[in-house]
Every structure is written in C-alpha cells, then in structure tokens.
C-alpha cells in the first residue's frame, strides 16, 4: 500500500515538472509585459512538433535526441521573438487585454499550419536514449524518464533564479516586473528587454513541449489542452512569481495524482476548484503581491463621448435594417440574424462589466449557459412552455451572478478574470457530470419555441425585441448615476470610496446585471437551437465573448455591438465557405488588431472625431 502511494506521489511530481516548464514561461512573459499570452499553448505544441521532426531526422543517440530537443526550444524562442516584434510590439499601447485578441489570432493560425505541415495523425516520438526503461522503487516499477523529469523542474527553477538574480539582464527584468515606467525612465531599452523576455518565455514553452516527446503523443489538441491548466498554475502561484508557479505546479500535480484515487472523475474540474479556493483565500495567489505602484495600473479612461451625428445615423440605420429587412429574407438568413442579435446582447453584457466596470471576465459563458440550462431544465423536467423558460433564464443566470459575483468582484485584474473562469468551469463540469439532471454532455433536446414563435421570422422578432431592449437598458444603466459611480470606482477606487461610494456593492450589482443580461441571451439561444449542451458554457464560448468585445473596442459604448456583428458574421462566413477557416479567421483578427488597435468602434469614433 505504502509503496503504491509513494509511486503515485512520484508520478504527480513528474507531471508537476512538465506543468511548471510551461507555466514558468507564461509567468515570466506576463510579469514583464502584462500580456495574457493565449498563444503560449501553441508555442508548446510547436516545440513538441519541431522536436519530433528534428529527433526523427537527426542520427539516433544522445546527440540526436538532446540536440533535437534543445534546437526545438530555441526555434520556438525565435518564433516567439517574431510574434513579439511583428505583432505585439505594435499594440502595447492598446487597452488592457487587447493583446489577448492578437495572441488568439496566432492560436488559430498555428492550428491550421500544424495540420498542414504535420498532418492529422497523432505522432509518437522516440523515447529518450539512456532513459528508455524503468527502475524499481520499493518493488514498484517507475519509468526512468519520469524520474529525470522530476529533476528537470527544480533545475530549471534554479537556473532561472540565477538568471534573474545574478545577471544584469535579470535585475532589469525584475525591475521592469515591479515598475515598468520607472525602468523606462531610467534609460533601460524596454523594447530589447521585452523581446528578450519573450524569447526566454517562448523557449521555455518550446522546451516544455519538446520534453513531452518521450512521454506523450504529439497531436493537434495539445495547445488548448495545456493552456488553461498553465494559466491556472500561473494564477495560483501569483502572476509573475516563478517560485509561486513551481509551488502551484506541485500542488496541482499532487492533487491530480491522489485525487483520482478517491474521485476518478474529478480531473475534469480539479485544477479550477483548487484555483477558486486559493483565490478566495489569497486574492493574489500563493506568492503573488498586490501591484506595488498605483500609478502604473491606473490609467484613467476617457469618458464616453456622445455619438457623432454620422455615428448616430449609422446606428439608426442598422436598427432600421434589423427591423425592416427580415420579412424579405429566407429562413437561413433569419437564423443568422437571430444568432447575431443574441450575440450582440451577450457581448454587451460582458462589456458592461469589462468596460464601465473595469473587470474582465474569462468565464462569461457561465451565465449564458446557465440561462440556456435554466430554460431547458424546466422544459425537460416540468415541460414548461417557452414563455416560462425565457423568464427563468435570467433568474438562473442572475442567481449564479449573485453567488459568483460576490467572490469575484473582491478581486482585481487578471485574478478576478481567472476566478470567473474557475466558477464557469465548475458550472460547466456540473452540467457535464450531473447526468441525471442535465443529461450530461449529450445535452437536453427538444427545447423548441411555442407554436406562435415557431416561425423563424416571429422568433427573430422576439429575439430582436428582447436583445435590443436589454442592450439599450444596459446602455441606459451606463449613462445613469449608477454607471457613473461604476466608472468612478474603476478609474479611482480610493477617491470613489472616500466620497462614500460602496465600490463593492456597485460592482456586485453590475456583475449581477451583466449575468442577467447574458442569461436572457442564453435562454433565447436555447430556443433558437432547440437543444442545450455543456458547450454553451465551455471556455471557447467565453473566449468568443471576449473576442467580440475586444474587437469592437472595450473603451467605446457601441464596441460590443460592432464587435458582435463583425465577429459573428465573419466567423459564420469563413466557417461555411472555407476549409482552412481557422487560418483565415486568425489572419483577419491579426489584421484588424494591427490596423484598429482601439477596436472597430474605437477606430470609427476616432475617424469621426478627426473629421469634425
């Protein structure tokens, strides 16, 4: 018994080392550049694929294997530099999190490129020379390579520590992590610093991927499989903290290894559960520190200007088209229009807490999905009609908003965003695992509208009415005293509190409102599709919402609307017409990011201002 537990622990240590390698690169990059690098998983995958190509083509033996692994890591480092120089460097001045949009474009492009270069079949790399077999530990066999990995983690941590504490470059990086502006003012070349940091981070991701070669198959799903977990490790450890990331990796690795002995199904959500608990107890992660300098974080956003006449006319024209055109459209166009209307409300609800509230959410799909489930569960269990279902949707989502929001709005920045993600994943796994109630991943079928709304045109007008109404109400709330208070809390929490505003309560109410609005969208979506699945609250849908808001421009009022229109439409067109739609969508996103760093609506507004 004891020997089994010991070996279980060792297995956990090996996994922890692998996880740490990926997370270390991510945390180093975030610490200095404040970029939420969604493409880190893609770099990891590239590392694995490149290592496979190099190792299988180089002569067998120690040189071929280890040389191939290191070369793969360095090549990925160079790819990282290219991404930084060609893309990210151009948009450092954009609003917070905007770079996430760019890195997501990279993710899409790498997915299709990898498929084109390496083909669809999983690849199995050779085992490491000298570490092929196993050794006996108390009579239980344990792979040598896993033993090797257990040591790699601490060694890399040690080397990084030396690099950061014993070299001039490292000192600068630490200084930049603490206060970017001050380092720049002292004459340090920030560009070079950022580029080299990106090189290091990408190398670590590549190394992490390459070292998986003797352990796991190389496949096209590696990127997204690792990225969420890597973020969790970074956040649990505290953003920018290497020892924190190491500790967090150990924690997750051991929890996974022992967790499955007691609850075999827990792996789905375990990492997110741990993250939720850690963030509730320690809002800045295990070893993270609150941002030391207030001035670096506080950028006061410009107030929302009244829309220019041209812009207002365009908005009215859009509404007119949405109202008058549909009777002349075919059924499929109505389906797409309905979906766009729903996405406009979904994006507007996220924008409500992200823009005026200043609190990003990585898990906004939870409220969308809970709205859909709120309606569908009533249909499934008590055969409720659509009208009741649509009423229940915002209640279900709002209730979750009350509970989750109470925890989330206490945190700030990426920590808050990651806590929303944790709650979303917990809700998702409940929908996924609670088969008796929710039907599990096979979902709930037969969620169809009442007879009067069964006609596509009637349902479109119903969706339009509710979505337009809710979106306008959200806009109204932003311009009401409540909205001003919310923005005051975002731009200067201290002053807002000093004049007697209860920041916590205001943000909490905003969070609930956003959840309710997302719930309405989710309920409408359920009846539009006729079925509800856990994918409605999975990570990709949260990412979609983020993309729409960022694409439109988070600092404008009409941003989410423009973003939802553009993204839903582009996505639908490309996906329908092209096999390589991910490559094209990624390229379109990169172009939009480079040319409209303020978002589409932001750019339009600027153009109008210039003309005026």
């Amino acid at each position, binding site marked *: 018994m004891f020997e089994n537990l010991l070996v279980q622990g060792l297995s956990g240590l090996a996994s922890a080392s692998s996880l740490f390698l990926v997370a270390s690169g991510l945390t180093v990059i975030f610490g200095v550049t404040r970029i939420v690098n969604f493409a880190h998983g893609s770099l990891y995958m590239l590392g694995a694929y490149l290592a496979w190509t190099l190792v299988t083509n180089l002569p067998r033996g120690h040189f071929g294997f280890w040389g191939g692994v290191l070369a793969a890591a360095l090549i990925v480092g160079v790819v990282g530099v290219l991404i930084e120089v060609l893309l990210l460097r151009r948009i450092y001045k954009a609003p917070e999190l905007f770079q996430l949009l760019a890195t997501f474009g990279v993710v899409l492009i790498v997915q*299709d490129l990898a498929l084109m270069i390496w083909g669809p079949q999983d690849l199995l790399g050779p085992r490491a020379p000298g570490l092929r077999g196993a050794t006996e530990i108390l009579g239980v066999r344990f792979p040598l390579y896993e033993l090797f990995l257990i040591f790699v983690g601490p060694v890399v941590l040690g080397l990084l520590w030396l690099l950061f504490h014993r070299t001039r470059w490292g000192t600068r990086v630490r200084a930049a992590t603490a206060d970017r502006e001050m380092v720049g003012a002292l004459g340090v070349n920030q560009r070079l610093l950022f580029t080299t940091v990106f090189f290091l981070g990408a190398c670590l991701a590549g190394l992490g991927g390459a070292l998986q070669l003797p352990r796991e*198959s190389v496949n096209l799903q590696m990127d997204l499989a690792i990225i969420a977990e890597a973020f969790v490790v970074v956040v649990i450890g505290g953003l920018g903290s290497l020892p924190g990331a190491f500790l967090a990796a150990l924690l997750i690795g051991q929890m996974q290894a022992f967790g499955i*002995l007691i609850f*075999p199904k827990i792996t789905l959500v375990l990492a997110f559960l741990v993250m939720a608990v850690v963030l509730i107890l320690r809002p800045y992660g295990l070893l993270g520190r609150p941002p030391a300098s207030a001035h670096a974080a506080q950028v006061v956003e410009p107030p929302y200007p009244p829309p220019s006449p041209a812009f207002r006319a365009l908005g009215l024209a859009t509404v007119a088209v949405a109202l008058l055109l549909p009777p002349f459209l*075919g059924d*499929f166009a109505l389906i797409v229009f309905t*979906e766009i209307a729903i996405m406009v409300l979904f994006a507007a609800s996220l924008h409500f807490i992200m823009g005026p509230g200043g609190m990003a959410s990585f898990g906004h799909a939870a409220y969308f999905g809970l709205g859909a489930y709120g309606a569908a569960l009533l249909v499934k269990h008590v055969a409720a009609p659509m009208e009741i279902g649509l009423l229940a949707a915002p209640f279900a989502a709002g209730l979750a908003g009350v509970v989750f929001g109470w925890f989330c709005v206490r945190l700030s920045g990426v920590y808050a965003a990651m806590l929303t993600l944790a709650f979303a994943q917990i809700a998702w796994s409940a929908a996924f695992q609670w088969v008796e109630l929710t039907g599990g991943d*096979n979902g709930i079928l*037969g969620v169809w509208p009442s007879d009067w709304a069964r006609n596509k045109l009637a349902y479109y007008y119903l969706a339009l009415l509710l979505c337009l109404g809710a979106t306008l109400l959200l806009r109204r709330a932003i311009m009401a005293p409540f909205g001003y208070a919310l923005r005051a809390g975002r731009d200067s929490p201290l002053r807002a509190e000093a004049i007697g505003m209860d920041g916590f309560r205001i943000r909490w109410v905003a969070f609930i409102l956003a959840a309710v609005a997302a719930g309405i969208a989710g309920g409408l979506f359920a009846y539009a599709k006729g079925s509800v699945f856990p*994918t409605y609250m999975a990570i990709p849908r949260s990412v979609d919402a983020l993309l729409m808001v960022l694409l439109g421009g988070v600092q404008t009022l009409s941003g989410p609307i423009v973003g939802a229109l553009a993204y839903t439409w582009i996505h639908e067109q490309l996906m329908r017409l092209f096999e390589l739609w991910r490559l094209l969508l990624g390229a379109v996103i990169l172009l939009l990011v480079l040319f409209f760093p303020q978002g589409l609506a932001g750019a339009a507004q600027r153009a109008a201002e210039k003309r005026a």
Partner: protein
Amino acid sequence: MTMTLRRRTALLGAAATLAAPTVQAQEGPIRIGEINSYSAQPAFLVPYRNAWMLAQEEVNAAGGINGRRIETVFRDDAGRPEDAVRHAGELVNSERVHLLAGAFLSHVGLAIADYANQNRRLFVASEPLTDALVWARGNRFTFRLRPSTYMQCAMLVEEAAKLPARRWATVAPNYEYGQSAVRWFKELLTRAKPDVQFVAEQFPALGRIDAGATVQALAGANPEGIFNVTFGADLTNFVRQGSTRGLFERRRVVSLLTGEPEYLDPLGDEAPENWIVTGYPWAELNTPGHVRFRDAYRRRFNDYPRLGSVVAYDTVTAIVAMLRRAGSTDTERMIEAMRGLRFPTAFGEAEVEFRAIDHQSTLGAYVGRTALRQGRGVMVDWRYADGRNYLPSDEVVRTLRPQG
C-alpha cells in the same frame, strides 16, 4: 465606417440570393448536406471525406440515380453542436439539400437528430456511437450506420467472458461514450459471468489523461483484466506509461476501437500485444468487396483506407441504395425506403440492413487480438462480428426506444 457599410451591402447581397427561393428543377442533382467535426477530428475525418468523395464519384460515373447526379455540401461544425444546428438550417433552407448526413461526436449527432425531428428531414448519422441516438432519444427521421457503444461492448464481452480473469479494472474517457461503455461492459460481463469483480475505475478527462497517475492507480488495485475505452492521444499516452510500468504484464486487456488504424497506427512499434480489440484489419481483409474498395481508394489517394473511410463509403452506398429504392426525394418516401434497407458494405461481408425497429444498421466490426508485425501493430486471429448478433432482443429494444 466603410468596413461597416461594405459589410452591410455584402450581407444584403447574400440575403437577396437567399430570399429568392431557388426553384430546383425536379431532375437536378440530388443534394446531401454533410456536417462533421472536420477541424476538431482531422485524424478520423480526412480519410472519411476522401472515401465519401470516392463513393460519390463512382456513383456519378455510373450514371447517378435514375440519371440524377448526387452532390454533397460539406460543413465543419468544429465540434460544437450549436454550430452544427446552424449548418443544418443553412443546408436545408438555403442549400436546399434533400437529406442530412454525417456527425462524428455523439452530442453533435444528437443535436442534428433533434433538428431533423423538428424539421421533418431525413438524417443518416454515420459515425456517432451513443446508444441514445437510436434508443432513448431515437426518432423516426434518424438512422445510424456504425455499430453503437452497446454493440461493440457486447462483442468484447463475448471474448472477455472466456478469459479466466475475475478481477477487472476499467479506464475510460470521462464523457458519455466512456461512461456508457463502462456501464454496458460491467452489466453484460456480470450477466455472462456472475462472479466477476470490478476493483477499480478511472475516468481521465478526454484528451488530458494524466497517464502516469492513471496507470499507477490501476496497478495499485492489482486487477487480472483491464477494460480500456480510451482512444487517440489518451490511448497513446496510456499505452506508453502502462508498458514502461509493466501494467499490462500478466494481465489481459480488452479494448474498444483500439484495432482501428486511426488509433493503432500512431502507436508504431509500441503498439500493445495480445489485447482483445474491436477494429479494422485493412491489410489482411481480402474479401472481394474489400479488395475492390481498398484498391480503388489506393489508386485515388495513394494511401490506405482507415475505418473512417469505410464508414463514409458505406454511408454513401446506403444513401444511394435508399434513393434507388425510394425513387423520390420526398422525406416520407425516403424514410420508408431506409426502413429495412439492405446494402453491401465495403468490408465485403454479409449485406447490412437498417433495422426498421430502431433505425440501427447491422454493420459489424472485427474482433481480434493485437500483435506486432514488422514494427507496427496489426490485428490477428480476427473475425467479423456481424452487428445483428449483438443487439438486444426486439422486446428489449421496444422498452429502450420511445414508441409511437
């Protein structure tokens, strides 16, 4: 701003074409709308789509169906049921397809099946394995080709019951397919051999198995037999850790789908030996029908067929046979033709039938042992398990499927 305007006009243009109902000449081509997770599951679906095109070309070269060509409009759902439903709407309403087909993932298949049910369209599901598709949530518009989770489990249980193993452990991906497979395996094996014991079960998340810990957890329970449901990347990682840690020594492993080239080939010379598996021995299967299919596929794509290729080829064959029988593209007539339809399979085995009772085809699978030959995994001692022998009795099926 010009962006927005241009988008508007483009949309208007697209809408105008959609608005005018395309009057399809009765003798125009017969159109099939095919929805699948092409970008999410390329390993299975690239060979699938190849064989689909091959079958379609063959049918059209031979003069089509009563002079009408068949055409397929493919759509990628990216693994999201909500996107699949939107594509279904597009295919039916603006592409004017006569029937829907496809689906790889079970939840996507169920979503399309429900769409078909609501919109009264025929849906020929090719691949999704879930039993719910034809049983618990079956409907009269949906038919499924591949042997279901239940059928493949029943095939393996027949072999597992012959083994001396009493203590069993299971490992399956944590979603409906894995959970159902484990449930059926337990139930059917206990029925066949009441003294078996299940000593451990592992449910790693799909695509994210922590193989070392999972293997160790299974080994800790010291089972005599292991039932494996993992596939793809999870299987590869599981096998690698399991072999190095000696999990498979002196233990028998019974494994779903592992004999399919999609999953066996990536393992290369590390393919496990002497596992009892369901699969497809493409190289050794020399029935006249299969030789013809394999040669045609090789000539066309310079590659060997995978199981996905057989599934696609048979789906097209079935649809064509149905269209000939129906003599019409009216949905009711097509459904009548599907019920009890008999058609040949690319396996070259006995004719397959779409059962009228539950719309499940009787396509079977090959059951055999894995072995290593010239540095790659193959199936040996295999036999064709005809699907019709691995379905519950009609009375049981009636209780499983909503009637009326």
